[in-house]
């Protein structure tokens, strides 16, 4: 400083920061001065992640989404989203000289002429299938463990929207190659839109640019498939991840784990290596799958013509339950005053989002019933929430029954069953199976709760048989260590809501709203005597282990 002033030159203002030790630190200092990276990294570099295999399900969703975007960009370089007609003259000779659309023609070119094009197409489609499947399983993991509770309800909704949009973007992508199967899917969509009362024909004509199929639908679907829906999904995904970071991850109950901490290993280096490596594992497996298992061989189906169809026309599996709804619904039509109300198609069309929304709304319903306003970070074991677990299982069973309805033709041909019988079964089963599954699951959970209680109070079976002096044989039970005892008794049990007395202390009748009564009734159903086994108390444990009349 002083030397600078004596030499008469302008001195650079002093920095309070220590000199960087090496070039990497210097580069980091440079970036920090512009982007503030140190403050960002301070909270996140050693951020703690708890470990459990089921936490990777969400990672699979993220990675397949990235793979879909990477391969999707590649495909757009070769795909021509046009319904202009050309005569096919590529290397797939069975279709030589056939009139096809540009979309179909370019799909065949990607599959047969572009080197590696078929592989990328297959990776794109396989990744999409795995993406939806992983979202589904991830969502079920979150549901059954109660990870959707405060503060995570909004993230549950973001996740649900991602699943919902994933369904539709998958359907749109399936429709783009303009092959016989995809065209049939679009025709189904036209029929469904026409069933909408009042405005159905207008929506259909505006969507198709006139009468079905027209020449606009593929380019329009293309823009929606590659730009609109993925754009929204990307935004939701980023918001979803920001919230996961902000809330910090949930964890299972266990020694040292509380609602106020998160126990695990740091992001750098363990999770960078594990999660980063897992991206490559997922990508590698999908690439290998795409090399050996063909999905959507559009050349075998041929180009779309509205007067042709193949048997067992099927959508991808995730649309299968919608297909089931449409197949098993009786053909109800109401004709009056010169109008037709096509209930046979319209009711399934309305039920499709309802089946999905039923699960989306659950966190808010459960919260209303429990009235619990606290944050929850410790996960529930599914057995310790029997009604919730039963509802989730019932929902999955409904989904599966409808999926069976959507594949009734395949089930009929593969298992030599009557197609009509399967349809009748699904019609009845949609109502009966979920109810049966609910009660079975609930009983099962209660049985497991009893087993936990037994283990806590009487210890675990050792397999050692002891003969008592009077000749009786017994199996020796070993007491569980304290960490196990703690883990098995860490869950909370709600008490059912009690209504206030019918009359107050002055003998005046109290007004209890219908909503409160409903809430009390559901609360009794969820947390009453029939729905949870009281967990063992320390006193019970002490009494049994003290040796008075017990083994």
């Amino acid at each position: 400083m002083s030397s600078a002033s004596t030499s008469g030159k302008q001195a650079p203002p002093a920095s309070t920061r220590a000199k960087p030790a090496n070039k990497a630190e210097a580069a980091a200092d440079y970036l920090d001065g512009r982007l503030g990276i140190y403050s960002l990294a301070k909270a996140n570099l050693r951020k703690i992640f708890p470990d459990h295999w089921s936490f990777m399900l969400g990672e699979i969703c993220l990675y397949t989404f990235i793979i879909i975007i990477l391969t999707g960009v590649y495909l757009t370089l070769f795909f021509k989203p046009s319904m202009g007609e050309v005569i096919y003259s590529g290397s797939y000779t069975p279709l030589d000289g056939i009139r096809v659309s540009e979309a179909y023609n370019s799909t065949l070119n990607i599959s047969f002429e572009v080197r590696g094009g078929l592989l990328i197409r297959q990776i794109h489609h396989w990744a999409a299938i795995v993406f939806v499947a992983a979202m589904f399983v991830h969502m079920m993991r979150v549901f059954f463990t109660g990870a959707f509770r405060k503060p995570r309800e909004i993230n549950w909704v973001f996740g649900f929207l991602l699943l919902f949009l994933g369904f539709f973007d998958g359907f749109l992508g399936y429709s783009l190659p303009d092959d016989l199967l995809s065209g049939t899917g679009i025709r189904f969509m036209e029929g469904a839109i026409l069933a909408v009362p009042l405005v159905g024909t207008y929506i259909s004509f505006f969507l198709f640019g006139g009468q079905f199929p027209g020449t606009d639908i593929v380019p329009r679907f293309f823009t929606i498939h590659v730009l609109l829906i993925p754009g929204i999904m990307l935004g939701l995904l980023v918001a979803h991840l920001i919230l996961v970071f902000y809330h910090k991850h949930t964890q299972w109950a266990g020694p040292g784990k509380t609602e106020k901490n998160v126990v695990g290993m740091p992001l750098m280096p363990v999770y960078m290596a594990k999660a980063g490596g897992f991206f490559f594992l997922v990508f590698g497996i999908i690439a290998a799958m795409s090399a050996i298992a063909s999905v959507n061989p559009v050349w075998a189906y041929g180009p779309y013509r509205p007067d042709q169809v193949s048997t067992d026309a099927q959508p991808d599996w995730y649309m299968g339950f919608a297909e089931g709804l449409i197949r098993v619904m009786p053909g109800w039509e109401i004709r009056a005053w010169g109008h037709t109300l096509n209930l046979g198609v319209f009711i399934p069309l309305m039920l499709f989002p309802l089946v999905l929304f039923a699960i989306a709304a659950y966190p808010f319903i459960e919260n209303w019933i429990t009235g619990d306003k606290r944050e929850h970070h410790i996960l529930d074991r599914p057995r310790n929430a029997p009604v919730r677990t039963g509802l989730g299982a019932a929902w999955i069973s409904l989904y599966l029954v409808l999926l069976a309805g959507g594949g009734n033709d395949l089930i009929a041909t593969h298992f030599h069953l009557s197609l009509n019988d399967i349809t009748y079964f699904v019609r009845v089963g949609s109502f009966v199976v979920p109810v049966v599954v609910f009660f079975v699951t609930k009983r099962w959970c209660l049985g497991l709760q009893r087993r936990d209680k037994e283990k806590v109070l009487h210890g675990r079976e050792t397999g050692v048989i002891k003969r008592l002096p009077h000749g009786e044989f017994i199996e020796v039970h070993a007491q569980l260590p304290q960490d196990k005892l703690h883990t098995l008794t860490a869950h909370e049990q709600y008490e059912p809501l009690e209504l206030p007395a019918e009359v107050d202390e002055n003998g005046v009748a109290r007004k209890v709203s219908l909503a409160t009564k409903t809430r009390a009734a559901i609360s009794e159903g969820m947390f009453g005597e029939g729905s949870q086994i009281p967990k063992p108390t320390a006193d019970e444990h002490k009494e049994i282990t003290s040796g008075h009349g017990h083994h």
Partner: protein
Amino acid sequence: MSDDKLPAEHAEGHGEVAAADNPFADPGLPAHQVRRTDIDERAAKRAERQVSLLFVVSMLATIGFIASYVSIDPDKIVYIFPLGHVSALNFALGMTLGVALFCIGAGAVHWARTLMSDVEHPAERHAIEADDEVRADVIEQFKTGAGESGFGRRKMIRNTMIGSMALVPLAGVVLLRDLGPLPEKKLDHTGWDEATPAVPIRLINMNTNEGMKPEDIAVGSLTFAKPGPSVLRPEGLQESDDDFQEAIAKDALMLIRIQPEDIKDANSAGLGFQGVLAYSKICTHVGCPISLYEQQTHHALCPCHQSTFDLSDGARVIFGPAGHPLPQLKITTDSLGYLVATGDFSHPVGPSFWERSE
């Protein structure tokens, strides 16, 4: 629900209680269990070599990917058990890419699991909710801002702003109008519309592209047909026509021949000619073409959603989700003996819609 109904444990939290009198108390974080690689330098060295080997395999696989790309003919088909005949290029590219990616992942995960620290650390959580002081401060600031805007005071501005915001999206909706033409009566008519008793339209066999005589159609057979020459279409409906897809989506016919005494519906028999009946091929459910015909029972089944129609009984729906019978086309023969239509279907073809009167 009142707070006293909530479980007590949560509020207290499972602290690290060293309570001798409570066997269920949280004993705190367990001690770290060492791995072999933590204490045995030879095991650590071995793990290091394994990780490196995986990365080397990945490099080799990427080189294999590039080599396959430049050297394998895209048309080459090879037999690989148990896959059968597959494209050699697709298989080679997919497997090398798969191995190249998988080994990077496997190497990284193996490294993390064997050599990086696996000591668990607790990190504190902080409540998402702000404390009361911050909350009060923010609400105060908001009130100040809202007061300065006069939003609550100047009701006329507020109401007109809400009105304008509510209306402006209509501009976007209106702009969608030119996505397509209005439906008008287009769904009520098909290409057979032009046929009249004076100027009938011939039924053209979909496969041979020729007219058909009743004697060409065997009892129990199923034939597909499209419209022949008309005033507007002198060549008949051709695949090269610009609107072929739109036209065939409604005009496609299926012809069957049933012994006249087996036809249960007298009206349907009257629309046919000597037992030859012409039905719309488009399912009345959601519009798939119907193509599965059982000649013994005269049932036709849509392969998409299994609506089943009894073609001997006016194409009545006997199973499945379709809501009404298939429309039938009135046919007869012209002076040369060819099958012709003399008018359009009596009802609109295809899936039903709101404006459909019958």
